[in-house]
């Protein structure tokens, strides 16, 4: 099995800012490979290099067995790219956009319709509508249809679910999963940790560096400490109090609870007693399984 993407020591800086710093990874055929990281981590820059839109300062980027810097012409026929910002023509209709992209790739909508039928059928009733007048979720489906219309071997999606509601997000991932049957490799980036588990493998990226690459399960398992969730009514006071305690190593807010790790990893009652002493008597402490975000925060702390 060949590697669809092979990146070795890719670096790119914009002036004094190091956007990417020695990025090396490889993506296998037909897998969904996720890049998880906060805004400004370098995900878009990396994607622009993979899609031949940007030249790296150093390093070697091999995509579909070809050098992205020298064989960009051949590569562009085989890559589907969906930029983070909606980049279709807002003043063309749904249908016109799809036909347009099919034509510039030298194909027709009919030829590859089976590939997009699942996705496109959702927006087909609105095919006469201008793309700019679609809702966020529909725009995203149209953009995905246009990126797929030439049957690319590699699909690159830059934060496709940003700004889309939770139901549409979940639907979107179902669609990506279905695309596997067509042997399409997918590279996707997202700032949402909960989407990481939908990928085959994920790379955690921050400040232009890859912190870890593994399956989501193994990344979670890499969490090295015991994790507790602490809940109380007065959340703000709770986190302030927790951070004051020298026994507490980290305390991060997670939804309605606070994830806490302790320096000596003990699971006795001392934390509860401390909180009661500080005046928080309604605290509920439970041991919990670490998620990807916990691991990510742990790695960030170390980096």
């Amino acid at each position, binding site marked *: 099995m060949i590697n669809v993407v092979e990146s070795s020591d890719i670096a790119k800086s914009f002036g004094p800012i190091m956007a990417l710093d020695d990025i090396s990874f490889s993506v296998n055929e037909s897998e969904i490979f996720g890049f998880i990281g906060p805004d400004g981590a370098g995900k878009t820059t990396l994607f622009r290099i993979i899609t031949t*839109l940007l030249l790296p300062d150093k390093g070697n980027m091999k995509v579909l067995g070809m050098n992205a810097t020298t064989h960009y012409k051949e590569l562009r026929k085989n890559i589907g790219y969906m930029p983070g910002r909606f980049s279709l023509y807002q003043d063309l209709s749904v249908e016109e956009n799809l036909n347009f992209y099919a034509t*510039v790739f*030298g194909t027709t909508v009919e030829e590859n319709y089976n590939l997009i039928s699942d996705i496109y059928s959702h927006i087909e009733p609105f095919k006469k509508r201008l793309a700019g007048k679609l809702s966020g979720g529909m725009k995203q489906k149209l953009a995905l249809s246009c990126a797929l219309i030439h049957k690319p071997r590699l699909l690159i999606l830059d934060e496709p679910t940003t700004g889309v509601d939770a139901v549409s997000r979940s639907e979107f991932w179902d669609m990506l999963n279905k695309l596997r049957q067509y042997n399409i490799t997918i590279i996707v980036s997202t700032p949402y940790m909960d989407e990481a588990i939908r990928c085959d493998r994920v790379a955690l990226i921050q400040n232009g560096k890859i912190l870890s690459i593994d399956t989501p399960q193994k990344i979670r398992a890499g969490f090295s400490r015991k994790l507790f969730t602490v809940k109380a009514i007065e959340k703000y006071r709770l986190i302030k109090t927790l951070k004051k305690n020298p026994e507490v190593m980290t305390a991060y807010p997670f939804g309605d609870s606070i994830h806490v790790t302790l320096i000596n990893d003990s699971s006795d009652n001392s934390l509860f007693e401390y909180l009661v002493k500080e005046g928080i008597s309604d605290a509920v402490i439970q041991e919990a399984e670490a998620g990807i975000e916990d691991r990510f925060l742990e790695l960030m702390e170390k980096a």
Partner: protein
Amino acid sequence: MRTVFYLIRKEFIQIFRNKFISKAVFGIPILQMLILVPAITFELKNVKLTIIDKDMTSESRGLISKLDGSTFFKVSSSTFSEDEANNLLHRNKCSMILQIPSGFGKDIGTGKQGKLLATFDAVNASSAQLTWAYLNGVIRDYNTDLINKNITTNPLVPLPRIQVTNRYWYNEMLNYKYYMLPGILVILVTAIGFLLAGLNMVREKEIGTIEQINVTPVRKYHFIIAKMVPFLLIGLTDLALGLVIGKLAFNIPFEGSILLLFLCSSIFLVAVLGMALFISTFSGTQQQYMFVAFFCMIIFILMSGIFTPYESMPMWAQDFNLINPVAYLMRINRMVMLKGSTISDISRELYSLVLIAIGFTTLAVRRYRKTA
């Protein structure tokens, strides 16, 4: 080819779907022709004149009525005070003061030279000079009248004289509209070429659609051609519209070949579109583009010789005009429309336009990068 055709079709859909642009593209040229052609004129009419007549003889009154009778001058006030006359000039109430000193009539009657003093408002130097020339003409006329009177009273003395008969070729009636209209047509075509295509290109950058195009196998020159063709066609349509208005509203003569005019305009448009798209590759926003394009357009148009004769510009300006497409089309348009010049008469201009067109289009294609 199919791709280029499809790209062009896409541009047309977008242009005509934009409610404002689709109307403005044809409405503005019509307005421009109807407003500018009759408005811009160097003809002087009704120059306001203040008279200080200290002579008050039949000779001085004869001169004044001669002036007032011409279409160029209108005696707006007369006074005996120089201060008041200067004041009028200062307040823009008149453009010229003519002083007739006392003794003017007597001097003429006794065969001496009559003397006059003329003062001009020369804020606009060219109109002051023109006024002076007109004034000279009227006085020369008056002189001839005086001499003729003398001849009849004393027919034994023959006066030697040269008579000049003149004809104004290509514009017999010295109709200023005939001169300006071909020039206005050039401005019209320039504006279409310069502004619309460049803005369209930068807009794709601004809203990010160019990113999506760049990852496709579309070739650079395909994309550039697709940006040029729609505006080339719109420019030619506007030219045709302008010519029709010229014929219907101003009855301009058209001596040369219409086909030749359209051929030259097409090449000119390619040159201007090439320049516009070249500039657009440097601009990240429509605002940046507008600023640069507007600046270039003003320079090109004002240096093209639309108002001031090309030949009287300093040498360096004439050298600059070697790369100014507007200057070439300005000359071609006037020569073809008014003189009926043929392709061999304008070959130098035509070749230059072809070179500029090829040069800037090549630059635009090369500068447009699909990879940063």
